[in-house]
Structures are given as structure tokens and as C-alpha cells.
């Protein structure tokens, strides 16, 4: 009696055991490199740490209180917010414009698609070095151009008024390739028949854009806006190469600030508190996007 029933039990759970085996690599890696360090970061944010990063003195919310009161951190948050505001909308509008152009069925369109997407293949480090040269006050292209137009020279990366804007310009360029590629993919998924029926009615280009293309593209737009926002909060490489957070901390974006606090100043407690704030910001952005997205987005 018992043997057949245990046999069926064994057989019934074979899917479960196989699944455990197939999921094990992912689960182990996520546990070690995502979940554990996330909890550890939260834990460390309540402590003062020693040089090697061990929790030394429990201070409760002291790190957070300190951060919220420190002008340095307030400044970093302000710079991060401005940076997001400067980069995300312009990148998406430009990428959408390019994607609409590149979605036309014309001879040689493949070449233009490759040009637009090219910046996705160029690393942040390489792009930053190229832009560092173009921003160079004496031999860079931008100041030469201003010179030709007999306009006053600008100390792009050295002037606290201009540095964040300069970094933003280069970042927009770096991110255009990826956004373009995603938006073009979204445009190509739109059913051709929708346009055909509207053309019979004699609808113009912009009418079609507003009434068919953009609504049908809204899931893709929604996706790329979320990804771009998250990416903007995670910016690091261009800051490290172009400005190192300066001048007078005007480009000290949050990830750079975490990096400096942890690996240059060895203040792992306050660095962790900043990391927790970064995590919360991204969590809120994601949740907001989903809440808004549910209502606004038109799914096919």
C-alpha cells in the first residue's frame, strides 16, 4: 500500500525537484550578490563602521539625520535631480524623433539606423574621453566654434555654472543609441493596417502621429522612460572621468557621492545610508511609474 503512494508522491514532485535544480544557480547568485548585500547595506546604514567596513557602533537613524542636514548631501541630491531633469526628457524626445525618421521605408534607411544606434556600442569611458576633449577650454571643438562665432569662451567642465549642463549634454548623447533602438523596435511592432484605414480618410501625418502612432507606442515609451529615469540616477562613469564631482561639488551625483564616501573616505555607515536613499528613490520611481502606467498606457 505504502509503496505505490510514495512512488506517486515522488513522481508528482519530480517537477518541483527539477525546478529547484534549474533555478538553483539564479537563486544562489541573487541571494549572495543582490539580496544579502541589500539587507547588509540597510544594516550598515544604522552603524558607524571601522576601516574595514565592520559595524562598530550602533547609531540608529543618526546617519540619515546627519545626511539630511549636511549641505554636501543636499547639494548632491539637488545635482542628481537637476541631472535627471536635464537628461531624461531631452534624450527621449530626440530618440523618438530619430526613431520616427528612421521608421520611414526609404532606400538606405539601414545605414541611418546604424548611425543613430551607434552610441549604444560606445562605452561610457570612451564617450567621456571623447567629450572631455571636445569640452577642452583651449583646444576643444566647442570653444573653437564659439571663437568662430566671436562669442565669449566657456569653461565647460571647470565652471560650476556650466559643469552639470556639460555632463548632461554628453550623457544625452551616450543614451540616445539605446533609447532609439528600443523606440524603433516599438514603432515597427505597430500594425500597418491601422495606418491604411486612416489614410483612406485623408488623415495628415501629424494627425496619424497623435491618434495612432503615439498611443500605440505608449507601452514602449513607458518602458523607456522608466529605464532612463533609473539609469540617470545610477550615473557614475562620466562623472569620474569628466569632473570627479567638481567643480565645487556641482556634479557630485548620488552614486559618485556613495563611491567617494565609501571607497575614498572609508565612511561605510553614511555611504550605506546614501545607498539606502538611492534604493528608496528608485523604488518610488518604479512604483509611481507602474501606478501611472496602468492608467495612462494604451496596451494593444
Amino acid at each position: 500500500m505504502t509503496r505505490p503512494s510514495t512512488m506517486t508522491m515522488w513522481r508528482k514532485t519530480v517537477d518541483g525537484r527539477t525546478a529547484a535544480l534549474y533555478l538553483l544557480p539564479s537563486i544562489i547568485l541573487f541571494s549572495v550578490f543582490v539580496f544579502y548585500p541589500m539587507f547588509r547595506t540597510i544594516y550598515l546604514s544604522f552603524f558607524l563602521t571601522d576601516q574595514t567596513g565592520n559595524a562598530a557602533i550602533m547609531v540608529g537613524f543618526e546617519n540619515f539625520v546627519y545626511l539630511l542636514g549636511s549641505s554636501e548631501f543636499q547639494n548632491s541630491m539637488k545635482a542628481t535631480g537637476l541631472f535627471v531633469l536635464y537628461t531624461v526628457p531631452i534624450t527621449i524626445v530626440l530618440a523618438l524623433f530619430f526613431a520616427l525618421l528612421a521608421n520611414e521605408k526609404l532606400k538606405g534607411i539601414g545605414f541611418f539606423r546604424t548611425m543613430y544606434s551607434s552610441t549604444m556600442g560606445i562605452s561610457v569611458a570612451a564617450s567621456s574621453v571623447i567629450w572631455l576633449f571636445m569640452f577642452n577650454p583651449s583646444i576643444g571643438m566647442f570653444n573653437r566654434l564659439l571663437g568662430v562665432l566671436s562669442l565669449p569662451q566657456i569653461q565647460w567642465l571647470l565652471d560650476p555654472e556650466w559643469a552639470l549642463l556639460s555632463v548632461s549634454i554628453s550623457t544625452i548623447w551616450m543614451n540616445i543609441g539605446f533609447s532609439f533602438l528600443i523606440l524603433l523596435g516599438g514603432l515597427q511592432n505597430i500594425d500597418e493596417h491601422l495606418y491604411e484605414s486612416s489614410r483612406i480618410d485623408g488623415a495628415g501625418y501629424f494627425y496619424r502621429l497623435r491618434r495612432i502612432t503615439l498611443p500605440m507606442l505608449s507601452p514602449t515609451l513607458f518602458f523607456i522612460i522608466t529605464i532612463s529615469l533609473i539609469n540617470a540616477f545610477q550615473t557614475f562613469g562620466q562623472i569620474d572621468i569628466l569632473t570627479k564631482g567638481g567643480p565645487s561639488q556641482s556634479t557630485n551625483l548620488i552614486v559618485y557621492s556613495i563611491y567617494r564616501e565609501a571607497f575614498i573616505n572609508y565612511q561605510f555607515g553614511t555611504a550605506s545610508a546614501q545607498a539606502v536613499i538611492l534604493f528608496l528613490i528608485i523604488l518610488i520611481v518604479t512604483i509611481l511609474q507602474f501606478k501611472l502606467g496602468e492608467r495612462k498606457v494604451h496596451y494593444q
Partner: protein
Amino acid sequence: MKMGLPQKIWIYFLLIVTSAFVFFPVLYAFMISFMTGPEIIQGKFFPESLSFENYSKVFSRLPLLNYLLNSFIVSVSVMLGQLVVCSLAAYAFVFLKFKGRDFIFFLFISTMMIPWEATMIPNVFTIRKLDWFNTYQGLTLPFFALAFGTFLLRQHFLTIPKELHEASQIAGLSRFRFFWRVVLPVSKTSLVTLGAYGFLTTWNMYLWPLLITTNKSVRTVQIGLKQLQSQEIATEWGVVMAGVIVVIIPTLLLLFIGQKQLQKGLSQGALK
């Protein structure tokens, strides 16, 4: 789509002007990489002669070949690791019924909301404890599991008829054989997309190699660029740009070849 000639000319005009703008910085860097110091200071756009002197200089001043090889090893390892780990997980989510599937799926989704930068401090400590500083496993292993990759493959696996799975079990094919012989071959396009994506993002990774490489043994080209830039900056921009061109050629080539595939695959994975 039919359009008139004036409209066509107008669109071609916009295409040419805007794409030239987008591609200009790369072209500019390419031109600079052939120039001598005085030419750069004069502000020329075209080099006087096609001299590869800057390229030979950059290879002699920096262990660039060594860095390129390191980047290649790291990128290929992450690419293969992601393909294996993600396809196994995606198979389990699509073809196997088990308790807690929804919960585990939710766990996978939640990893996408945790920014890598928020966890980097304890991760560096973990790598130190494992004594994995300046090792390939330290550079690659943390990136093998990828929720995005799992979802991308899951979308493709969902299009495979469930009946095929049942039939193969009745025919006595083991689950792994089915996975290996049926699921993977029909999902080639998604696997290629994920592979290209993994290679590209790993090749371009900056912060992690910066944190856990302290010498040239496994250091990648991106960190090499930072080094080059801070050494040479004032004097020889031509050499620096030669380094930039060498570093971007592999990924640009990959993008040019796989642009179509990547665009289709990524937008599909993003949406459904």
C-alpha cells in the same frame, strides 16, 4: 507607405543632418587619432597624413593588448554564464509546475528594483572575503544571474507549445534532453539577442572593474582608458584617441552586425 518627392527629400535631409550630428563625435575622435600634436592644436579636422604612430604609441605605453584580452575573457564569460543561468531559470518558469512558482517569480522581479550601486559596498566586502580581488571570477560571477535575461528568454519559451513538452515526456525524453534538444534550438534568436546584450554591457562596464582590480593582471580596457586619460591628458590627445578607437571597435562592430536583431529582441523582451 507612398510619399511625394518633396516629402522624401525633406526626410532625407533631416536623416542626413541629424545622423551626422549623432555620429560626429566618433568621427572626430577617429580623425584626431591620426593627428600629431601641432595638428591638434591648430584645430584641424582632417589629418595631414594617415600615420599610425599614435596607435603604436598607445600599445607601447599601456598594456593595452593585455587589457583587451582581459575584457574579452570577462565579456565572453559573462555572456555564456548569463545564457546558461537565465535559460535554465526560464525553462523552469515555463515548463515546470511547482509550489511557490509565483513567489520565486516575484523575487526575480524584485531584483530589478534593486540598483546595483546600492549593493556595491557589501559586494566589495564579499569579494574581499572570498579573496577574489584581481580575479576573473570576481569580475564575472556576480553578473551571471539576470532577471531581465530570464524574462526575455521566458517570453520566447512561452511560444513553444506545451503539447510538445508533454509528447516528449511520453516518448521518454528526459527534461534536460528536451531543454537541450528542443527548447534551446528553437529559441536561437532570443539567445543571440541576450548574448549580444550581455557581451556589450559587460565590455562597457566601468564601476565594478574599477572597484575590484588593483593591478593590471585582470584589469579591463575601460579602466585602461581612465589610466591613459589621466597619464597623457595634457600632452598627447592623439594617443588617447587612438586608445579610444581601439576600445570601441569591437562593440561598434558587434552593434553594426547585430543592430536589427538587438532592436527586435530587446523591444520584445521589454514589452510582453
